[in-house]
């Protein structure tokens, strides 16, 4: 029973992690809270679903939807954040403009796909199950976990070992100094938005697959959990976000199993509130993105 | 405005401040009597700012006492120190930039009863030698020198017992710093005690009655400006040990 719950927690945590990494990357690099992240998460799931509905193989639909999500992220930056960067607008204003962008994306999604929940084509998803001792896991869950881990691995490699990763870390640490060192700031920020939004989109598609349900409000449900995760892990810390996501996944599944499902989310937000009050840098130190 | 004889004396008695393991201020004592200008000088990192922070309640002393007249300041929070009658200016100007010139001065008078009339505001601006008397102008849009003087006007508005000036001459041209000299003297003459942190030695020499020299958190010399300027320890602190050594060779 415990092992089963922990396994469920891992599947949930992996998708949370993908979502939260995008959040925290943008905060780490730009110090802004991007509340449109959840809208891109939702849009990517709808795009993948539509492509799958048109008969595009699921793998290709997934890849194309990631690119769409990434490009939406770049567009979001150009429209909602870049103009504010030029006039040093502080923290409140970009937060609001991201809400504006989210409202627009939400409206567009409602216009295109309508208000109702949608499902992937019946034959698109495997319903096979794998049994390991008393443990039962869906083959789909395993695939989703594998995809999430691969994407995190790729991101980790990019951040640590590529020129782009070095640029991103430099901009996160000190934008002015990075510019003096010859880093193309705007290009780095655009690529950060591409990566962050593509990962957020991946999370949306994977959650859509996991529950076989894509809906307009799926973003709202994960948006605030993502906040709890990045607070848990320390704002701007990618490693922290991943650990925080798996912790939250485990706590959620365990609390449903052993305490009560009704207060599940209150635990996450309660912990988040306590961390903010007692240790605002999160559990894993501060600015790990900058130090990594 | 502050009338002679009503100001209280600031007494800093053997105050030490620790940041983590570092002793930033080591048993420093000083007095700022009414109508007196006390200079506080020393190389960068000597503890001048730490002393100001201790007096204004930004940091708590690890030991020692700070008192204004009969009242102990060293256990008070920042705003209570200000209400007790300690006013200050900042090394990096900290005006309420989006507020009007008049509101900045009025905010300075916050500890006093009532609100300043426009005439009272203008009088303070005049005393602080602010040239532009457009009361509704946003403070942040004033030129640099005017902002420095407005900050002094804001501090004077509280009718303080003691005024702390943190490098007021920074960025001023010779003419402006000459005016500042006259301003400091005028304020002191009316009874306010002034603690002046400054790098401009000619200003310190011209206005201070007493000078205290800090280095590495310790008092290394004090006396009249002339005495301090002759003190070998002061010369060494300013020129650095390396410089002194190479001169010997």
């Amino acid at each position, binding site marked *: 029973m415990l092992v089963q719950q922990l396994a469920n927690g891992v599947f949930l945590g992996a998708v949370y992690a993908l979502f939260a990494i995008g959040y925290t990357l943008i905060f780490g690099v730009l110090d802004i809270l991007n509340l449109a992240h959840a809208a891109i998460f939702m849009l990517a799931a709808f795009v993948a679903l539509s492509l799958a509905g048109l008969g595009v193989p699921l793998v290709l639909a997934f890849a194309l939807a990631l690119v769409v999500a990434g490009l939406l992220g770049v567009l979001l930056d150009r429209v909602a954040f870049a103009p504010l960067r030029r006039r040093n607008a502080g923290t409140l204003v970009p937060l609001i*403009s991201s809400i504006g962008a989210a409202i627009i994306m939400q409206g567009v999604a409602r216009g295109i796909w309508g208000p109702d929940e949608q499902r992937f084509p019946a034959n698109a998803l495997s319903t096979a199950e794998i049994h390991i001792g008393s443990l039962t896991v869906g083959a789909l869950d395993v695939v989703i976990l594998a995809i999430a881990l691969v994407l995190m691995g790729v991101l980790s490699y990019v951040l640590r070992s590529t020129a782009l990763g070095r640029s991103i870390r430099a901009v996160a640490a000190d934008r002015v100094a990075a510019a003096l060192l010859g880093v193309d700031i705007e290009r780095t920020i655009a690529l950060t938005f591409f990566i962050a939004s593509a990962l957020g989109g991946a999370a949306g598609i994977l959650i859509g697959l996991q529950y076989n349900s894509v809906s307009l409000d799926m973003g709202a449900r994960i948006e605030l959990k993502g906040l709890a995760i990045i607070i848990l892990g320390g704002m701007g810390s990618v490693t922290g976000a991943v650990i925080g996501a798996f912790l939250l996944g485990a706590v959620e599944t365990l609390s449903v199993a052993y305490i009560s499902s009704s207060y599940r989310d209150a635990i996450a937000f309660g912990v988040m509130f306590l961390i903010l009050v007692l240790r605002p840098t999160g559990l894993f130190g501060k600015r790990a993105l900058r130090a990594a | 405005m502050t009338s002679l004889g009503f100001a209280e004396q600031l007494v800093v008695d053997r105050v030490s401040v620790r940041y983590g393991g570092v002793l930033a201020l080591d048993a420093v004592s000083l007095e700022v009597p009414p109508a007196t200008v006390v200079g506080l000088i020393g190389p960068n990192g000597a503890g001048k700012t730490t002393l100001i922070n201790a007096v204004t309640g930004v940091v708590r002393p690890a030991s020692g006492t700070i008192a204004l007249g009969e009242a102990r300041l060293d256990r008070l929070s920042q705003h209570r120190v200000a209400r007790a009658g300690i006013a200050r200016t900042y090394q990096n100007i900290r005006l*309420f930039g989006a507020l009007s010139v008049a509101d900045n001065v009025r905010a300075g008078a916050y500890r006093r009863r009532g609100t300043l009339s426009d005439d009272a505001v203008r009088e303070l601006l005049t005393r602080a030698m602010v040239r532009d008397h457009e009361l509704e102008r946003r403070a942040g849009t004033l030129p640099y020198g005017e902002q420095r003087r407005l900050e002094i006007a804001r501090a004077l508005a509280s009718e303080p017992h003691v005024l702390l000036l943190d490098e007021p001459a920074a960025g001023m041209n010779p003419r402006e710093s000459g005016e500042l000299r006259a301003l400091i003297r005028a304020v002191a003459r009316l009874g306010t005690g002034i603690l002046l942190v400054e790098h401009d030695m000619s200003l310190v020499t011209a206005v201070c009655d007493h000078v205290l020299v800090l280095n590495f958190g310790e008092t290394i010399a004090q006396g009249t400006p002339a005495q301090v300027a002759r003190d070998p320890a002061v010369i060494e602190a300013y020129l650095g040990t390396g410089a002194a050594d190479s001169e010997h060779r």
Partner: protein
Amino acid sequence: MFEFFAHHSKLIDQIGINALLALSLSISLRAGSLALAQAAFMGIAAYVSSIGAVHLGWNLGGAALAGALAAALVAAVLALPIGRLRGVFLAIATIGFGEITRIIAINWPITGGAEGLSGIPNDANTLSIYGTLAVVGFAIFLFGRTKLALAVAATREDESAARGVGIDVAGVRMGTLVAGAIVAGLAGALYAHSNFFITPGDFGFGRMEQVLVMCVIGGVTSSLGAVLGALLMTVLPELVRFLHDYREVSSGAILLGIILFSPAGIAGLWQRRT
């Protein structure tokens, strides 16, 4: 004219309530605190006033006052742990507080849970809503002429310099949070008493976003702006019904447009012209 009011009375009431909410947020934004707990304060007051009315037979006035008082108490307690937080961290902590409040409302038997609380006497009318709005507006106007208003503005501009002139910054921040909670509480009570029933979902993050948007569109710290922002954002969805499912896009576009082109909101447009 009368027919117009009768036909749109629901919308007119909604505008008044939203104006109160936007005003309540602008009060705490005035001190520079990005505390986003208005929806929670509104919800607390809505439930207290409704439960009082349903179970104890309170009239509207008593229920609204009790609700506002409850919201104020919660705000005063909340102010202590969040006192050190600023900027985005304060925003996130208060969003978390709002979620916890909502989840408690879902699970507490007396609130009627997720299905909501029904049978609330429908005794708030246009007069009581706009009467409250007028009283709150007048109170804010009077406050603006006091020395405390200057302390609030100075706190927003530079907390450290504010302390340096003797302003109790922690007190100012707590005071504005509590004052904002009272106004949000009045709005919550009126909201509950002009709808037959309420659910925890009425007071979630979506509501908080709406209020924030109205406030920012109006111009953050301008009271008149907050009211205009509430008016615009409440009426707009009705005006663009022809866009059908694309309706939301217009709200988002107006919000983005104002942020990008008039940083001081509608109030800023006004000031620029005069």
